[in-house]
């Protein structure tokens, strides 16, 4: 039904590295800017540089490579159709015909560009959130003016995801134990519908109990925390470096665009 998934994004947050030590507020803000800059890139060399930079950050953080396999796998699966469709559908004059279909280098270039950018962004995003304890990431978001109610709900949702994943696995095991075999048919879909319905009914009762427990402990709609962030000079240096790199990437990209307009390269 579902692969073994590791929900705790912060399972390597305890590792020691300059990325882990970076103040989460500065880290998230800086990497957000960097990610946006990468999303705007339009030339292959700049996108390649971005990927190198992302790999460097990831290496710096000591996060193991298998930590990213799931996320990168998603990118590959999602973007595979782009490689198959775009070279053959790019508007304008095709370079040659492949198996009777018009093939345009420009379409392949675009697909490759998207692929490089997507890999770079996913790597940076995993580095940012994988190197910080989840609750600290969320508190950092709150300090960065993300609405408190959204941050609260993210924290609660994350926490209860673990409860329901356990519940879902137990229910599924008991279904399998009673001889359920999923197939491509209406009966399977109907059973999945009832399965999700059962999960919902249980969660609905739980929402009431959780709220009562919160009220009993004096909840009034706010989630307080004693966590304080303390930026040190190194945080400012890392942030400055990150912003400079984002600027350089964008500049290289615009330069590349100009070169392409002049010479037709890239």
């Amino acid at each position, binding site marked *: 039904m*579902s692969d073994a998934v590791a929900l705790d994004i912060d399972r390597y947050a305890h590792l020691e590295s300059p990325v882990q030590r970076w103040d989460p507020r500065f880290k998230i803000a800086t990497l957000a800017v960097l990610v946006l800059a990468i999303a705007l890139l339009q030339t292959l060399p700049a996108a390649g540089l971005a990927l190198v930079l992302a790999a460097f950050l990831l290496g710096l953080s000591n996060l193991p490579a298998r930590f990213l396999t799931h*996320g*990168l796998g998603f990118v590959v699966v999602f973007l595979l159709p782009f490689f198959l469709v775009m070279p053959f559908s790019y508007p304008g004059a095709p370079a040659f015909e492949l198996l009777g279909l018009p093939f345009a280098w420009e379409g392949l270039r675009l697909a490759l560009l998207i692929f490089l950018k997507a890999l770079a962004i996913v790597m940076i995003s995993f580095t940012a959130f994988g190197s910080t304890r989840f609750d600290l990431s969320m508190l950092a978001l709150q300090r960065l003016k993300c609405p408190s109610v959204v941050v609260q709900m993210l924290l609660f*949702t994350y926490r209860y995801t673990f409860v329901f994943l356990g519940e879902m696995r137990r229910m599924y095991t008991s279904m399998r134990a009673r001889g359920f075999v999923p197939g491509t048919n209406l009966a399977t879909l109907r059973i999945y519908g009832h399965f999700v319905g059962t999960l919902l009914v249980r969660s609905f009762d739980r929402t009431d109990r959780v709220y009562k427990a919160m*009220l009993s402990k004096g909840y009034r709609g706010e989630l307080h925390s004693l966590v304080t962030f303390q930026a040190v000079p190194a945080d400012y240096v890392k942030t400055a470096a990150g912003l400079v790199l984002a600027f350089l990437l964008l500049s290289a990209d615009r330069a590349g665009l100009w070169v392409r307009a002049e010479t037709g390269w890239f």
Partner: protein
Amino acid sequence: MHISEGILSAPVLTAGFAGTAVLAAGTMRRLDMEEIPKISVITSVFFVASLIKVPVGPASVHLILNGLVGIVLGWRAFPAIMLGIILQAIIFGHGGVTVIGVNTLMLGGGALVAYGVWQLRHRFHLRQRELVFGALAGAAGTISSGLVLALALVTTGEAFHAIAATVLAAHIPIMLIEAAVVGACAEFLQRIKPDVLAGQQLPRQRPVADSATPPSRE
């Protein structure tokens, strides 16, 4: 279905964030304190349910269930889906951080459409009303999401027209799967615990909240 990083143009990404911000603010108006844990806990159910894979021949697809979120949470489906998308982007790298806006608009918008379809059921007198309208809502949720996605691709550039058509076509089998699952689920909930479904809340005792002003913290 999520769109991945790196594809959409800057104006489309920006429009995604702007649209999400507006719709989130609108659908979260007059949010009661009680709804904070409620939306969160139910969102976590949908989060884990979206990990369920349905076999389609030799391959398999994940359930989306945004239509079901719509018929369970009503207007609050939009913020719930936003939470789900943010967490999926952070935890799994599904979608990604720059496309949180577009993805929320796509799936959350679909959920709102599904809720609209679901509410139409009151005007009909059918024997299996919840099953039929659940299925319609499930289908509507999927296909409207597919349309938003196709629109985002088409807006990004002429080069993406073919891919947009491909993506839309891929939504048709998914739509059928979603319709079957959401229809069965709606019928089940109507039978077992109808107050889970939006738009027909039965009288319920609300726990008494402490309305005193909270102590201030510096």
